[in-house]
């Protein structure tokens, strides 16, 4: 009875990715392909110290010996790592201040709704903008510096704060941790660096906005966040890319370190280009994110809303080493059309009385596949450890798949581990109920999906929560009717 015709659905699907434009700007790119020379070139381009070059080379050689992981429930043609550019940056020199940023770039970020002009910026949010391989602007640096907070591109931190970078880089995700982390360690070009000194509560939300623009370019950013004793910070990241027919590789590494009583809240709204309805194009989002709760009573909280990317492979994890430390993972993963997501978390309980909470909401529509994969591991010394896991899947239509793959390893008898899982469909009677109250079919789906995700969305900072709600609705446009 629905009058939504095939044509309108296609129209909606085509227009739904509104960040699909590309920016025409003169770029500097290194030759395609990966070799020791390219690694050296990237390091030289950035004027890096020898220790970092050596670390990159060690990572590169480790990577050469490794194989792409095959255990995830994702399928894609083999990636030709020699057909990618590993470094692409706007050709103009890195700006010293916001006034020097290329107007074309400023326009790009305006269009994306990320104002880099401080006066126009959202009050209380400092932004680092990463365009392809380099950071192009960081706002509110002076305000932050007054509080003792360091927030800058990681390439700059290597120069300005080498002792900090050297101490922590690779300390949570070692260079040879996995295939994509090793690749990132060899070729990472930029990303954000955050350091919150002892006892400081970061006075504003920090945010990094990642944009892939150049064709055939991999983006390999590296983010490192350190919160010293008693420090706290809330950090947000957002991602978009132009619509391109080729698949693009994004292999990032994020490392978080929380010392005694420190708190880090890391929120992601991932909206990389997902490919078209037939599965052509889109980002391969192969990301390693891990946080170490090193200090007692420290807390790391991951919140993610994953709506984009052709393939998502990511497991933001917490190593709960300090006694009484807390790990949290709140996730909404939406797949539509031909998208594939294999995402979840790892909670490794080492310290006593450590607790972890996992709330995962998977939504599958179209012909997509959505997998939750999670590990809860209680080590012998983790007396009194507790975990609560809830995995809910929502199916829209009958061509999609939802899969839940929980692993639980408990080696301490005093630990408590709980796992709850549900799978449901948006029922026809729910849709009809909403429509009989005046809501369009699309709005009804949006309302039901947002309700389903509420436990996760409420963990997001306010401005992001509103964005995320809209994004969920847009991602599912054309999925019913």
């Amino acid at each position, binding site marked *: *009875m629905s009058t939504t015709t095939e044509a309108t659905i296609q129209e909606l699907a085509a227009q739904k990715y509104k960040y699909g434009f590309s920016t025409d700007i003169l770029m500097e790119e290194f030759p395609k392909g990966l070799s020791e020379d390219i690694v050296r070139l990237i390091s030289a381009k950035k004027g890096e110290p020898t220790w970092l070059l050596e670390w990159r080379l060690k990572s590169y050689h480790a990577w050469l010996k490794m194989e792409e992981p095959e255990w995830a429930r994702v399928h894609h043609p083999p990636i030709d790592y020699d057909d990618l550019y590993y470094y692409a940056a706007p050709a103009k020199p890195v700006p010293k201040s916001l006034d020097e940023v290329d107007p074309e770039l400023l326009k790009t970020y305006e269009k994306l709704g990320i104002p880099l002009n401080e006066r126009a910026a959202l009050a209380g949010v400092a932004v680092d903008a990463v365009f392809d391989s380099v950071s192009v602007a960081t706002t509110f640096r002076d305000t932050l510096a007054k509080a003792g907070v360091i927030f800058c591109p990681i390439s700059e931190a290597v120069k300005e704060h080498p002792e900090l970078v050297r101490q922590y880089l690779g300390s949570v995700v070692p260079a040879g941790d996995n295939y994509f982390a090793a690749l990132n360690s060899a070729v990472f070009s930029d990303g954000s660096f955050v350091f919150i000194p002892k006892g400081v509560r970061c006075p504003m939300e920090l945010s990094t906005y990642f944009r892939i623009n150049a064709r055939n370019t991999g983006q390999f950013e590296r983010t490192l966040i350190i919160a010293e004793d008693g420090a706290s910070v809330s950090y947000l990241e957002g991602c978009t890319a132009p619509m391109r027919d080729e698949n693009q590789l994004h292999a990032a590494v994020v490392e978080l370190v929380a010392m005694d009583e420190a708190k880090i809240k890391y929120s992601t709204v991932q909206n990389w280009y997902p490919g078209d309805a037939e599965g052509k194009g889109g980002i391969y989002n192969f990301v390693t994110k891990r946080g170490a709760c090193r200090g007692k009573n420290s807390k790391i909280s991951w919140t993610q809303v994953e709506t984009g990317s052709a393939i998502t492979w990511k497991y933001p994890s917490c190593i709960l080493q300090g006694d009484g430390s807390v790990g949290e993972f709140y996730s909404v993963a939406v797949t539509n059309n031909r998208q594939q997501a294999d995402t979840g978390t790892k909670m490794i309980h080492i310290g006593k009385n450590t607790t972890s909470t996992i709330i995962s909401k998977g939504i599958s529509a179209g012909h997509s596949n959505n997998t939750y994969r999670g590990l809860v591991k209680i080590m012998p010394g983790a007396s009194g450890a507790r975990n609560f896991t809830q995995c809910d899947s929502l199916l829209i239509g009958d061509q999609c798949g939802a899969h839940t793959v929980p692993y639980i390893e408990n080696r301490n008898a005093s630990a408590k581990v709980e796992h709850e899982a549900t799978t449901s469909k948006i029922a026809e009677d729910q849709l009809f109920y909403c*429509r*009989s*109250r005046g*809501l369009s*079919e699309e*709005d009804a789906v949006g309302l*039901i999906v947002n309700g*389903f995700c509420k436990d996760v969305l409420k963990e997001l900072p306010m401005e992001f929560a509103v964005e995320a709600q809209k994004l969920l609705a847009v991602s599912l446009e054309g999925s019913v009717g």
Partner: protein
Amino acid sequence: MLEIKNLHARIGDAEILKGVTLTIPDGEIHAIMGPNGAGKSTLSYVLSGRDGYEVTDGEVLFNGENILEMDPEDRAATGLFLAFQYPVELPGVGNANFLRTSLNAIRRKRGEDELDAVAFLKLARGAVKQLAMKEDFLKRNVNVGFSGGEKKRNEMLQMAILKPHLAILDETDSGLDIDALKIVAEGVNSLRDEKFSALIITHYQRLLDYIVPDMVHVLAGGKIVRSGPASLALELEASGYAGLEAA
């Protein structure tokens, strides 16, 4: 005015409505009674546009407009409201948010301004009070964990806020105790005016003690087999539906 003319409808191969003809002028309340399986719920779903019901003949005009071609949400915008026999649960969706989204969707379709949060809350609180409900009703998730009576009251709250021109109550009285029944009746009676009309589908006569209908129709075997004044309901209560299908 609602005009149902020779309405035939089927689910799959089974013909349920076999030529229903019925007119409800503005300002009137009509009751439809009848045995189980007579097609009462089918009639309410066909009128409100649920998927899965195929209209094979006849037409339905609401204020002169053929509504059978319309999507359910457009029928809602013309002022049609169905109070469900089994109200549906929407986990995680707050009642106030749902009501405001509905009201504003309808207002938008009618070209009216949307209500902001403050104006809406004032309206909703007033309605909650009038229906003798607790205010936390607005904060709870739509029908989740509601008792049977609370679900029906929630339908009345929606009706009070959406202010339809035509309300269809599909066995809203089933499973209600006498107090809840009075509240449902109060919900309908408070909307009564020369523009408002209602179609009350019920299996029992007792709701009609509180909402006195202008007409009572008996639906049996997919057709209206008898129509009469309010007293017909009492007669049916005494004699039952036996023998009506043959009539």
